């Protein structure tokens, strides 16, 4: 476990090798091999480290490795007047939450790397290596994000994955829509990062440290800010702004649908399984802080459920297969957030894991479909592909059932846990969530119907060799010339699909709730990551058996109860949190829980059946409804015109401001410069005047004076000799007078 720092480093090395050398020199095989080898090694290391982690007893599952110092100690003043020590090491910490994350990232990342070997094969050699370099770089940053032991290292990863997202979305940078989408993603992300950075500043000013464990431990004994809006609420709100940007919640979700311009493996890895979940991870990492700020938790829950609902509504009417999946991702992220918002941190993290499996699966399957259809992404031009793409069909069906929440697939367990917790906390949110789940099932099965069932609506093809019709130029073309109709993808692409399908089926079994006889292992497993460790354990009034002191059950105000461990207590039959004062965990009976479970399954099935009817049996119903509710249909198709709204307000405002500044610069600043130039000219003209009239005037004056005086003096030249003699006599007279009077 001391080598956990190698886990991010190996893909990083792969990125460096591919980036510096591979783009120029490597063949496609070598580039792919380098990238996949590093990913496999990282995966092996992750599994090994995780296994070692499991070997430790529950409370001690936390291992920190510091390999170097980044920013050495610097004394800085804190908000409470003392002098804190600003010290940032390169530290990596393995604990349950990060252990789960590294498995998800390396596992699914490795599968996607393998998939990309086949999918990106049509690219030119240098670009192929470039793709793998970027992909490895992304995994490097993502692993740093989840393994970092303090905010700053996490932020390095945070920014890095944003950068790689930009690079990968704009992979086909010569296409304007792709480069625009990359820019949009990066800029919108940045807005969120602003909040994150402010949150970091405030955390340091309040706690004097940026290490996660120290911050959690310091915040643990602090009072819950139930009544008002205090420092912790502000901190958590700022952090949540960062999460909103990274994880595409309202109002910063607009980049995610556009991010589908990137290659499908990118969408699968970054925008389904890993990067967008960074926000969820961050909230979970700071669970202690969030639990002390009920106001922010409310905000988180409301934003999450609103996003989930809104994205689902948009997904109902989209025709691009990847767009549907993108909005589905936004919606599912909303699920994760409102789960955390009602206090179910472990449930949110559990859903993160299962979602990573089935969403990656769905994206890769869609990539397979697109590859088969030679770049066509519009579902209206597909249909009836079941018989041509059997493997893809089966795996995608598994993924769809998982996301719809059909047991015993993984999605059912995680989604149901979320719904259960939400029901206990806030019935309104629960209601909206149920409707969203219905819509989820509906649009996913709509996708399946339009793609795989029914009649084929695509272009015709030549069975024999000859002219084929090439589809759109979005994704990698089939490597052979001429399209011979939809065909199943090569093995390098289908094997990851199958492995992911297995994962989508089985991943849920780590979180079987107690109601069904399970032990809800994942919740127990993750619990230490969401609690603070304080010195005194006597604060648990019940003298809890567990040595750590759970903040979740601490005294609260009238705010919604956060029942973190109801299942745990139920499963173990012990009283842990129930001895705490204020309200204990709200629980409902086993029957109630089963009823809820049944309701969520029913909702899923209803959604599937309705979609089946609309799109398979009677396809005209959908068109009829679209015509009848044409206004609503148009609004949904245009995504509530949010992009246009942003363009008109924020973008136009920024551009207008920039233009005004430019005008200011051109007129005022340049005007000042020109003015000084004019001033110089003016002073030069003035000097010229002075020189011409004053200086030359003086010179001329001297001449004029002499001339005038000469007019006077020359009168002495009378020409009369006797006048001259008289003057001489005057001189004599003067001398004699002087002699006479001096003597």
């Amino acid at each position: 476990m001391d080598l956990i720092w190698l886990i991010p480093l190996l893909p990083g090395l792969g990125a460096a090798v591919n980036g510096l050398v591979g783009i120029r020199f490597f063949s496609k095989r070598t580039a792919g091999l380098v990238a996949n080898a590093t990913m496999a090694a990282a995966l092996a290391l992750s599994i090994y480290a995780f296994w070692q982690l499991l070997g430790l007893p529950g409370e001690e599952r936390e291992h920190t490795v510091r390999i170097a110092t980044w920013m050495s100690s610097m004394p800085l003043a804190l908000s409470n007047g003392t002098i804190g020590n600003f010290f940032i090491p390169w530290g990596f910490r393995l604990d349950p939450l990060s252990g789960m994350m590294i498995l998800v990232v390396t596992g699914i990342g490795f599968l996607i790397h393998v998939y990309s070997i086949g999918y990106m094969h049509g690219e030119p050699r240098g670009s192929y290596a470039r793709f793998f370099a970027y992909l490895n770089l992304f995994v490097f940053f993502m692993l740093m994000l989840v393994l970092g032991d303090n905010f700053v290292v996490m932020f390095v990863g945070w920014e890095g994955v944003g950068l790689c997202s930009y690079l990968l979305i704009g992979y086909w940078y010569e296409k304007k829509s792709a480069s625009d989408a990359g820019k949009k993603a990066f800029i919108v992300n940045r807005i969120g990062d602003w909040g994150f950075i402010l949150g970091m500043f405030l955390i340091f000013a309040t706690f004097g440290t940026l290490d996660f464990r120290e911050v959690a431990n310091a915040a643990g004994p602090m009072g819950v800010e139930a009544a008002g809006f205090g420092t912790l609420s502000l901190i958590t709100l700022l952090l949540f702004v960062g999460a909103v940007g990274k994880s595409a919640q309202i109002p910063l979700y607009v980049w995610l649908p556009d991010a589908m311009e990137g290659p499908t493996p990118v969408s699968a890895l970054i925008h389904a399984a890993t990067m967008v979940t960074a926000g969820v991870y961050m909230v979970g990492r700071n669970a202690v802080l969030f639990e002390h700020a009920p106001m922010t938790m409310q905000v988180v829950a409301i934003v999450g459920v609103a996003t989930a609902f809104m994205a689902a509504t948009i997904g109902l009417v989209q025709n691009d297969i990847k767009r549907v999946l993108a909005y589905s991702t936004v919606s599912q992220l909303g699920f994760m957030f409102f789960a955390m918002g009602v206090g179910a941190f472990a449930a949110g993290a559990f859903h993160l894991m299962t979602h990573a499996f089935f969403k990656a699966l769905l994206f890769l399957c869609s990539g397979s479909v697109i590859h088969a259809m030679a770049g066509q992404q519009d579902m209206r031009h597909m249909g009836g592909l079941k018989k041509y793409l059997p493997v893809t069909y089966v795996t995608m069906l598994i993924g769809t059932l998982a996301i719809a929440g059909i047991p015993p697939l993984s999605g059912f367990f995680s989604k149901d846990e979320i719904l259960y917790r939400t029901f206990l906390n806030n019935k309104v949110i629960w209601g909206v969530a149920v409707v969203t789940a219905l819509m989820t099932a509906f649009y996913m099965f709509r996708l399946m119907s339009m793609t795989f069932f029914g009649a084929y609506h695509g272009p015709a093809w030549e069975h024999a060799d000859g002219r084929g019709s090439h589809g759109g130029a979005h994704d990698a073309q089939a490597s052979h010339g001429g399209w011979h109709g939809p065909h199943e993808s090569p093995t390098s692409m289908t094997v990851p699909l199958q492995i992911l399908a297995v994962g989508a089926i089985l991943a849920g079994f780590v979180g079987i709730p107690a109601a069904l006889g399970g032990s809800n292992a994942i919740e127990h497993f993750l619990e230490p990551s969401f609690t603070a460790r304080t010195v005194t354990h006597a604060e648990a009034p019940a003298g809890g058996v567990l040595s750590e002191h759970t903040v979740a059950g601490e005294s609260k105000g009238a705010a919604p109860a956060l029942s973190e461990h109801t299942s745990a207590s139920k499963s173990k039959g012990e009283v842990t949190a129930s001895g705490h004062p204020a309200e204990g965990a709200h629980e409902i009976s086993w029957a109630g829980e089963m009823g809820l479970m049944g309701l969520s399954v029913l909702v899923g099935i209803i959604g599937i059946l309705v979609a089946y009817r609309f799109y398979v049996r009677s396809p005209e119903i959908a068109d009829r409804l679209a015509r009848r509710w044409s206004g609503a249909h148009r609004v949904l198709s245009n995504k509530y015109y949010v992009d246009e709204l942003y363009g008109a307000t924020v973008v136009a405002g920024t551009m207008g401001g920039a233009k005004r500044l430019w005008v200011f610069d051109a007129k005022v600043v340049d005007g000042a410069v020109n003015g000084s130039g004019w001033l110089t000219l003016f002073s030069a003209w003035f000097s010229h005047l002075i020189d011409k009239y004053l200086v030359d005037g003086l010179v001329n004056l001297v001449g004029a004076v002499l001339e005038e005086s000469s007019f006077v003096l020359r009168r002495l030249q009378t020409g009369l000799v006797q006048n001259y003699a008289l003057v001489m006599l005057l001189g004599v007279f003067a001398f004699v007078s002087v002699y006479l009077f001096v003597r």
Partner: protein
Amino acid sequence: MITTTHYMMLSAALFTLGVVGVLTRRNIIIVFMSIELMLNAVNINLIAFSYYLQSAIGQVFAVFIIVVAAAEAAVGLGIILSFYRNKETVNIDEMSLLRW
């Protein structure tokens, strides 16, 4: 007793007469003659002092003065003649060509 003072006064008076003549008369020949008067006055002074100082130097100097006076009179009168030939006048007021 006749002292040098007397001779000096005589000389001064004669010199003044000469000056007045130079300044007053219009006829240029009269002016020249007044100049001769002035020279004579100086000569008187010199001779007187030579007598009273028992020295021959005064008389030698007076000889030189006479020589110079003679030369000057010759040349001056030559100039007057030239001028007369040009201008037909000896009126000194009309001899003011060297004026502005």
